[in-house]
Each structure stands twice: as C-alpha cells, then as structure tokens.
C-alpha cells in the first residue's frame, strides 16, 4: 500500500471563516489507493471543514488539495465538475431523493458522465441502469431496486448512497460521519463495506468518524485532528489511550 500512488494529497490547508473563526491551521495529509484512512476528532475540530474543503464546498483560505496530482484550487466550473466526478462523497444522512426508487438514485451518480438532452429532462441512460444493478449487488441491496428510497432503513439508505457514489466510478471516496446516525450493527456493516472497497477495489477512502473503536477495527491509518491541527497520524495500533482522551478533550483519569 505504501508503494501505491497517492490519490489525495492535502498540503498546508487552512480555513478562516469570515467571522474570524479558524477551523483549519495548515493540515497535511495523504491518502493512497487501497488505503482506508480515518479522521478522528471532537466536534469543532475541523473535520467537516477539511472534507468539504477537499471538494471545494468550502473555499480554503490557504494551502492546496491535489487529486490525482492535480490541484483543484482555481479550477473553472466545468473543470471542477470533472474533478468532483472522480471523488465520491458520502454524508451523515444518505441524502437520497426519497421519492425515487433505489435503482434511479444509484444511477443518478453517473449523471456527470452523460450530459445529454434526455438526462437534462430527467431521463436516466439505459446503460447506467444496468450498471446501477451491479453496484446495488455490490452493496447487497439488489432486491430493493424498485423500492422508494425513503422506505429503506437508515443503514440501507447509506448503502444506497455508497452505491450512488460508486456509480461515479470514483478513485477516491470521502465520507463525512457516515455512521453517526446508525445503530451499531448497521455502522459495522457500512465500515466493513468501505473496508472492502479499499482492499478489493483499490479505492482510496478517507472517512471522518466519531468512534475510536471503529477506527481501530477498520482503518489502515488514523489521523487525529484537534483544533484544526493534525496531532496524530499513524497506524491505529499506535494510538494511545491518552491520545484518544486528548482528541476528545477528556480528563485523563
């Protein structure tokens, strides 16, 4: 894995909000193909700002983000769209179109590749519907293809969201607290799925988590973020209890 190319490189990323709050103070990190990296940190540590800056939902104040060696700062609208296609994003809530069926939701992940007149009218390319079946099989939900997305459980919806991200054919997956609103069983299922996508499909996966135990169980590497700075970057077994306490600002016993 160490020899794999770096899919995502972040250098000196800083963000100061207009109200003066500093969310990130020069963050460096790198995620390679086939690697699952977990970011741990308490609320307000800058985790979400970091993830959202990578896809430029938030404009960073300083530093650079390289996806496939290409800086995404200063890209025009069309180039940014292209860059975002290579980078799947999963949210805390699945953010599906609840009234559409599961298959259609998955297929919408591929819209960026089919900028046709029909797709602008709300039609989905036929070949993508077939591909979407394949991605649903990959997340184990092929039997639910024709159900409305809103009728599925939280864990199932999150798996549909992952299938939608896969429909983008990304090389990099970003996940912003993907299991925060799920029960422990569904949370483990989602983490196992992300693990498999990294190991078997060679995706670079970067996910923000709140649960140190899940990080220890599934991550190749853990990055600890505190007050907008990286305070830990290493193997999960190297992270100490005092470090976890520091990240979550608990008093050491």
């Amino acid at each position, binding site marked *: 894995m160490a020899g794999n190319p770096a899919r995502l490189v972040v250098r000196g990323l800083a963000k100061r909000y207009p109200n003066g709050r500093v969310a990130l103070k020069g963050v460096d990190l790198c995620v390679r193909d086939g690697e699952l990296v977990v970011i741990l940190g308490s609320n307000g540590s800058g985790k979400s700002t970091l993830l959202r800056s990578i896809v430029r939902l938030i404009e960073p104040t300083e530093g650079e983000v390289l996806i496939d060696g290409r800086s995404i700062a200063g890209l025009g609208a069309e180039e940014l769209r292209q860059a975002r296609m290579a980078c799947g994003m999963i949210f805390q809530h699945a953010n599906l179109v609840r009234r559409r069926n599961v298959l259609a939701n998955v297929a919408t992940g591929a819209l960026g590749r089919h900028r046709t007149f029909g797709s602008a009218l709300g039609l989905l390319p036929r070949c993508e519907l077939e591909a979407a079946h394949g991605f649903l099989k990959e997340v184990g939900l092929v039997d639910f293809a024709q159900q409305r997305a809103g009728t599925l459980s939280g864990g199932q919806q999150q798996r549909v969201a992952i299938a*939608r*991200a896969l429909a983008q054919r990304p090389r990099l997956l970003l996940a912003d607290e993907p299991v925060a609103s799920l029960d422990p069983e569904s949370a483990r299922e989602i983490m196992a799925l992300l693990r498999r996508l990294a190991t078997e499909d060679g995706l670079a996966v970067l996910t923000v988590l709140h649960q140190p135990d899940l990080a220890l169980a599934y991550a190749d590497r853990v990055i600890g973020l505190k007050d907008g700075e990286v305070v830990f970057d290493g193997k999960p077994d190297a992270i100490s209890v005092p470090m976890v306490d520091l990240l979550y600002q608990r008093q050491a016993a």
Partner: protein
Amino acid sequence: MRRSSLLTLALLAGIGLFGQSLWVVDARLSELVTGVHGMADIIARASPPDFSSLPDIAWPALETLDIALFGTVCGVIMAVPFAVLAARNVTPSRPLYLFARGIIALTRAVPDLIWALLFVTAVGLGPFPGALALSVHSIGMLGRLFAELIEDMDMGAVEALTLTGAGRTQVFTHAVVPTLLPSLLGIALYRFDENLRSSLVLGFVGAGGLGFRMLTAMNLFQYREVSMLLIVTFLLVVGAEQISAGLRRLMA
C-alpha cells in the same frame, strides 16, 4: 390581578364584541321567523327541479369546469417562476425577491371577484374574464405555497448530486423536481377545487358558467331551474372534491 378575574374580563369583552356585531349587522330574530313563510314559498315554487332544463345546463356546467381548469393551469404556470424568485434560499437577487413577493401579495389580497369585475370591464362578458380572474388570483394563492415548499426543501439530495459532477439542469430535473412535484401537484389539485367553487360565484358578475345562468333564472323567477342548477352545482363540486382527494392520495 388574579388569573380568574382576568379570564372573566376576557369573557365579558368577548360577549361585548359579539353584541356590537349583532347591532351592526342589524340582526332581528323576528324577521327570521316571519321570513320562514317566504322561504317556504320559494322552496315550493322551486320544486320539483326542472329536469327538462338539463340539456341547456350542460354547456354552462362545462364552462364552469373549464373556467376553473384554465384558471388553475395558467395559475400554476405563472406561479412557479414567481415562487422561485420569492423563495429565500434560491432567489437570484434581493430586488427580484421583493418584486415577486409584492406580486404574490397583491394578487392574493385582491379577491377573485374584484379581478373578475376588472376583466369583465376589459374584455367583456363571458367565461373568459372569469378564467383570467382565477388565473391571476391563483398566482398569489399558489405562489406563496410553492415558495414555502421550495424554502422548506431538503437540500441534501441537491448537494449530493452536485458533488457527483452533475450539471445544474440535471440537478434540477433529477433532485429538485422529483422532490417537489408531488406536493406541487397536490396543492394545484386543491386549488382546482377552490377555483371551481369560485367560478360559480364569478358568474354572478357576468363571467359566464352556471353562476351566470343562475342569475338569469332568478331574475326571470324560474325557481325550478334554479333548483336544478343547484343540484348540478352540488354534484360538480362534490365530484371534483372526491376526484382530487383521490388523486392526492394516489400521489402521497
């Protein structure tokens, strides 16, 4: 002051308020009692309903339905762009927002009956001014509801699709439209019900349909036709309500 005495005071004020309304509307129970005779007379003259007038009523009934249909469809078409401008989360600019809010408030505040009177003056008697009046009034009634719908929309799916690299139009047709369309159609169907009831009244100011026919029949003292017209009206309104309720259930 204690809570109970405040309550007593509020109750007395309420009674006083209602009392002054009796005086202002000139309510006289005695006339209601002596009037019973007159009403019975009208009912006697209005029965049995004149079924032979049914073929002549068919056309005005269709007019009434179509006034409501035209008004609703045109209302929806014109309300959507105003609603987009008048929704705080998607409006392109503050002046346009205020402009759209103003149009919506104006078309709402002026009752459809007044709009009908204005349009009768402008384009003459007949169903067309009624249809125009309902279109304009519907802009305001629908525009506000549509704008609220857009403001309350869950933006999660919109953000998710934007990040897949989909274009703006694609995000609109694949995320915004499927999310909003069912509620939008539900509101439009409900508006059709209301427009149908309004279109009956609009006839009385010369805007065609069953209402106009009813006014004529009353002026000619043909009460048996009036009762027939009332039956047809009742069936139309109840039928439309049932159908639109059924359609709304289907979409939910």
